[in-house]
């Protein structure tokens, strides 16, 4: 059995930072299904989703230095990275022909790589899936409107003013719905 199989997520990231390719392989085994599922939910088709998954792992390999190897939150970093990359691709496709389509290292660092505060609690793959039933319950307590606004924002990649246009409601209402939805989720998951 590979020694990397037993390593916690954060240790695995440290091995990857030493350009240990088998550690990246283990990370792929551990996370590829989750990341692929997120990306596929956002992407228009399977081929695009597969291409984005490849690009996400290339980013992990190239930009591992941007991850906080001391106290980083591997689970949230990877999911957010995959989501950001897929949403960026979706927005580009949506805005093709109307906006400048540049993409370089600086852009990737600024808009694609997740930016987390230092006081963030760490979360790993097993913990996140252990509380899956609780997350389902928390989401089920949201109103239909809150769920729909969250869906449009997170999976459809729409910005607040776009959601406002789409639903024909004031921007302030959209902001409020998002904040209330997240507060409800937090109260249920953290507050109890």
């Amino acid at each position: 059995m590979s020694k990397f199989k037993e390593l916690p997520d954060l240790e695995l990231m440290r091995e990857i930072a030493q350009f240990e390719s088998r550690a990246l392989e283990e990370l792929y085994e551990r996370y590829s299904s989750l990341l692929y599922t997120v990306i596929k939910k956002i992407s228009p088709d399977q081929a695009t989703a597969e291409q984005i998954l490849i690009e996400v792992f290339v980013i992990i390999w190239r930009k591992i230095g941007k991850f906080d190897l001391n106290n980083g939150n591997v689970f949230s970093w990877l999911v957010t990275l995959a989501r950001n990359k897929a949403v960026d691709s979706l927005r580009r496709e949506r805005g093709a022909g109307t906006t400048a389509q540049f993409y370089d290292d600086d852009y990737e660092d600024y808009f694609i790589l997740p930016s987390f505060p230092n006081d963030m609690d760490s979360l790993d793959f097993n913990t996140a899936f252990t509380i899956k039933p609780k997350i389902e319950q928390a989401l089920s307590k949201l109103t239909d409107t809150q769920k729909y606004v969250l869906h449009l924002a997170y999976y459809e990649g729409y910005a607040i003013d776009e959601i406002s246009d789409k639903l024909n409601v004031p921007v302030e209402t959209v902001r409020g719905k998002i904040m209330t939805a997240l507060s409800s989720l937090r109260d249920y998951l953290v507050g109890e």
Partner: protein
Amino acid sequence: MADKALSEMIAAYAVGCMDKQNYMQFKDYMDESGYLPKGELGELQNIISMIPVILDLESPDPSIKDLVAKKLIGMKEEIKTKIIEEKKKTTLAATNLSKSSIGQTKNRTISFIDKKAAKKTATLQFGDDNAKIPAAPRKTKTETPEPQTPVMEPKKIESPDMAATPKSIIAPPQLISRATIEEPKPASPEKTSSGMMGLVALLLSIVLFSILSYFTFTSVNSLNGTVDDLTTQVSSLKNQIATANNFISNYTSLIEFFNYKDIIVTGLSSSDTAEKGSAQILLSFSQKEGLIQFKDVKPLQPNQGYQVWVQSKGQSYSLGVYQPGGSEYLKINSFPFLPKENIESYYITIESNEGSPTPSTVIYLSSAAGKIPKGRVN
């Protein structure tokens, strides 16, 4: 009101639904240590990232993993250059840090830039004065005084009097008159003054010398510290480059091999599900070249080796004996001169390290029948 506005921005940032302008504004605000309620953003970002957990997980096609590997292997030069550049940056930053003053926290306020409202009127913004967020205490920008340069000090201390002093003490003999010798007079105030001046000059010289010695000593100590730091950084850089080179050298043969266009990849595994060992054979029939990679295989005795076989029309042909050290790619030293259509299967047995003319032990790993070619890599 202000708390609500900030909470709305934090929520929007966590979900990732800010437009570009607001996103940049909020990110800059965070980067410049603007006030954020403790733990709130991190909590929300964790919650948001857990939302996909409720989805039914779907595995990507197995070929995607190979494509990831292939893409990464193609990046060896970029990685090497990146390591060197980042280390250079780190060294420069460390040098600059020692010169610059301590970081400053800016007092910032932030509010949504409301595009719609801005179109209607410039003053009607979501974040008006009443809605301003309590900002972090502003640290006043401290002007760091320029370090004093001791070498410049002597010019300031040196006075015209000091310059004149030696002339007064060592007066030319021809200026002493005969009358002065014959009729001694009480010492004139001028002579007393020049003696005092000499003493003062001597004391000043000693003080000046002491100051210079002190500054020289502290400067040398400081430089020694910097040199030690740089030496540590250089050795760390060397270690990282050595790691990168090691990685690159392990994969050089694979990188060269992937230049060929007709590569057939075949996976070999054990029929025993408890056995974790596996192997992968990559063949280019046009170039008559191939590679083999072993993964998690059983350790061998010193006189043993893994002998790889190809079966064609019921006959077994050896592709060589290998003693892998890890999961590196090994060049196949005996390419099968057989039409690829006639190849029925590949398998591996454990033989003596000199090889066996025919398989003499049980099959350890094999490709499943009917799976050749398993995959095709371009």
